[in-house]
């Protein structure tokens, strides 16, 4: 039976995260730290002149929740414009993850999103 939190796709994304790589020539990047556990995720973005994300990657270490979330997030962002993805809300991120997230694990689920948003807002768009 599928676990309520650690669903098979979450575990699969933990074992084999999507887009876990260095992005060559990235114009945007930021690192975010989860202060409660020390996990770090950095996100790198390469966008074309129209602001469309042509390449995206993440690096760092994290729990199954944060790794699955950043995998799904980066996959979602690919091919979309930076202006569109910078406004993804916390709720939308949790919905994208598709599992019920407890208060204690909210930072895990949102770590990648914070890194993505900082990568974009730190750069003039």
């Amino acid at each position: 039976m599928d676990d309520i939190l650690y669903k098979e796709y979450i575990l699969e994304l933990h074992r084999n995260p999507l887009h876990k790589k260095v992005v060559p020539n990235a114009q945007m990047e930021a690192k975010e730290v989860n202060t409660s556990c020390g996990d770090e995720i950095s996100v790198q973005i390469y966008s074309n002149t129209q602001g469309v994300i042509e390449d995206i990657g993440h690096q760092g270490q994290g729990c199954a929740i944060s790794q699955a979330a950043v995998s799904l997030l980066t996959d979602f962002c690919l091919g979309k414009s930076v202006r569109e993805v910078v406004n993804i809300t916390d709720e939308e991120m949790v919905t994208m993850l598709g599992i019920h997230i407890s208060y204690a694990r909210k930072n895990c689920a949102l770590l990648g999103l914070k890194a993505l948003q900082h990568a974009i807002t730190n750069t003039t768009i």
Partner: protein
Amino acid sequence: MKHIKQQFSIFSTNPDLVYIDNAATALVPDTVVKAIATYYTEYPANIHRGLYDISTKATRAYESSRKKVADFIGAKSDEIIFTSGTTFGCNMIAQSLKSRLTSVDNIVITRYEHHANLLPWQKIAQEIGCELRIIDIIKDGEDAYTLDMQSAQSCIDSNTKVVSIAYVSHVLGTITPVNDIIALAKTVGAISIVDAAQAVSHMPINVKDLDCDFLVFSGHKMYGPTGIGVVYGKKERLSSIEPYLLGGGMVKEVTDVSGIWKEAPEKFEAGTPPIASVIGLASAIDFIRGIGWENLQTHEKEITMYAHEKLKEVVDIIGPIDLEKRIGVFSFTILGIHPHDIAEVVNRDMVAIRAGHHCAIPLMTYLGVPGAARVSFAAYNTKEDIDILIGAIKKVKVLFTVK
């Protein structure tokens, strides 16, 4: 020792709870709750200057608690200062000693330190422009994770003014050879400070035998309430340092332009102290004394041995192998499974453990692990608790399919 659980209502309301996060905070026995409630229901007055009965009663209870704390660690009453906890104690001592330091001096701590005994010194070292030296731990071999005495000898030199060390590592469970380090500090005339937060509920402490200048601990890690801590300071040290907090209750005379401080301990207790928590702390000491150090230590040793034996079969323990050199605090990792995921899944079996960097980021970096899960035992833990923990860990490994 199974009857110990009966003294904690939390185990009647949560009979399946396996609480093994005692290094974070210990549970509170009903007697302590009752002592606090009695203060609030029978004599909830402020201490000292009240000339009415319930204030006198509160003052007596407060000061007799101070005496109880003093006796508990072999000190005198006027050497005991009540604070809000170990973190406050470390900051208070660091700030009080700051004016004595110059840029040629150095401050020595160990690799074990909790952020509470690291950051205050780090900041002072930056401000003064002096060196902060860290005594290393042995990395490999039989003595791995114990303090490197060679490193201690090279860190502590004629320019060392302060040596501030953890008695027990809250991450590794290692017992620091505090006597040897204090002796080294003395040979160079440095002030010695012991962070006893993780030791105070596990072993008898005598400050006169240790001969340290200061010793700090918290009430909530020794079956007492949160928000109460203790700074022990040698009488001569306390008279020679300036108070960290100024305000009501700590002055003899005040004019428009200056004040004359009272003697210790009042000098260091400006403002209304946490009276109920002080009374609760005294009651926690009664709880420990009621069990008796011999019984408590025999029990904890047995639990530690059993936990070590069982845990090493299912996880990778980060900490000393020699059980004589450690207490029942075990940090561990499981390859391929994040500590938060371990803690989340064992919680489903009502097993309460901690996961993360444990407020010791430099130590974790040194050990090369981003985080770890940690279990830590207390008087009420049983072998059955450990069996449930092991069963829960096995479920984590099944879920994450680690063979």
